[in-house]
């Protein structure tokens, strides 16, 4: 029942959003190619001539769906949209995602795979960049070991001294919660639940568009009880993208 409701809601979203006015631009290229779909592989089946006006219906990645005054519809690549004039008679700036956007990014999401104390680990992370040098990050890690599996939730503070570079190293400090459950096939094993402190280093490499490649090395201190601390090392590599 809940699934059905969600499905209905999902189907309604585009209908509600559809009732809007569209931005209009005038074609300045000799011809504007209209492709059947939003991608270079889709064939161009119609053209719009210079001087005609088009409405911009929507955008998917770097492609714009337009409709001409005569009712021709199709997808146009960004490079052609840049050669149009707005109603105010100036060139429209359809920006690409560039290095500048990367430098001004706030929210970043990604995932990474690696090893945690010899076991395979998977991490999902969301980070928020407070300013040029300071980033806050939430990590959810799942460690799948031969004898047990662990979940770690940790909150981190990163200091990135060279954040205006394509290669940006950072220091990482964090704390969190560690939970370990032995496999069901083991006998007499007990669950462990403890607080962790983390210190680490990492590297962000801005790849292209919205992609960032990241590599991390982290050292975890798990405070199991008053008398016992355990130390684990984790390294991981993964993809992130920013908004």
């Amino acid at each position: 029942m809940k699934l059905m409701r969600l499905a209905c809601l999902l189907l309604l979203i585009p209908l509600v959003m559809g009732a809007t006015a569209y931005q209009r631009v005038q074609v300045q290229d000799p011809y504007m190619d209209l492709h059947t779909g939003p991608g270079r592989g889709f064939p161009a089946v119609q053209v719009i001539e210079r001087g005609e006006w088009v409405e911009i219906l929507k955008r998917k990645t770097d492609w714009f769906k337009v409709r001409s005054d005569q009712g021709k519809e199709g997808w146009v690549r960004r490079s052609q949209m840049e050669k149009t004039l707005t109603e105010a008679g100036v060139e429209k700036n359809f920006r690409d995602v560039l290095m500048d956007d990367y430098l001004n990014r706030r929210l970043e999401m990604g995932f990474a795979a690696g090893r945690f104390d010899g076991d395979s680990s998977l991490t999902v992370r969301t980070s928020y960049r407070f300013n040029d040098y300071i980033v806050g990050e939430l990590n959810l890690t799942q460690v799948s070991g031969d004898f047990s599996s662990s979940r770690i939730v940790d909150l981190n503070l990163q200091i990135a001294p060279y954040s205006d570079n394509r290669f940006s190293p950072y220091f990482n400090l964090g704390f969190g919660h560690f939970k370990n459950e032995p496999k069901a096939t083991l006998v007499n094993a007990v669950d462990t639940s403890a607080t962790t402190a983390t210190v680490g280093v990492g590297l962000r490499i801005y790849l292209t568009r919205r992609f960032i490649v990241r590599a991390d090395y982290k050292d975890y201190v798990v405070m199991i009880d008053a008398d016992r601390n355990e130390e684990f090392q984790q390294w991981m590599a993964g993809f992130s993208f920013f908004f």
Partner: protein
Amino acid sequence: MLNQGICKLLTLVLVAGFFAPGCSVLSSRDKQDEKQELPMEEAPGQVIAPDVERRDISVPKIDTENWEIGLYVGVLSVDDFGSRAIYGVRAAYHVSEDFFLEGAYARSTVEDTNFRDIGLPIFPNEEEDLDFYSFSLGYNFLPGEVFVGTKWAMTSSMYFIFGVGNTEFIGEDDLTYSLGFGLRVLPRDYLTFRIEAKDNIFESDLLGTNDYKHNLEFNIGFSVFF
């Protein structure tokens, strides 16, 4: 010197006395009277009323549709433990026309019926829940169109998908790699139908020896762009 100081002070008092009636605090009643009189007179110097048609300069925002969210249903065959229905949700972000990133969560069940039949039960119950999640990178290839009848053409695309995730059943977590491909058909620009085949690979020692398990999954689903 003293005289000069007194002179200055006197001048200041006089000036203040001259301007004080003009202060708003002191002349609030006078102002109210003026306001009442104003509507009776015409504004001076306004001969021709301006009739300028202002252009609407608020530019409507372009609707970007790079996010995709959807549901799917299919069959998951878990190595040694039967084939059962799988239900899932997924959300994808399209980074470019070629690549997308996707997160998925799905539920299914596993059974050890075959082992119970020969008197070797493996699970606490014959049927156990299975949870699966993954994060994937997808690559679109072979873009094209699908034709239904003579009047209906829908854009379509094949895709490869590679993911890293986790499979959990009877309290055991296994890091899972997914490899698959699928077909995405778009009857509307915001609506997607998908058919997908995947191999979910994980390492397990449930049956004694540690082994790579290949778990084939076939699913169909729909999603909406927003």
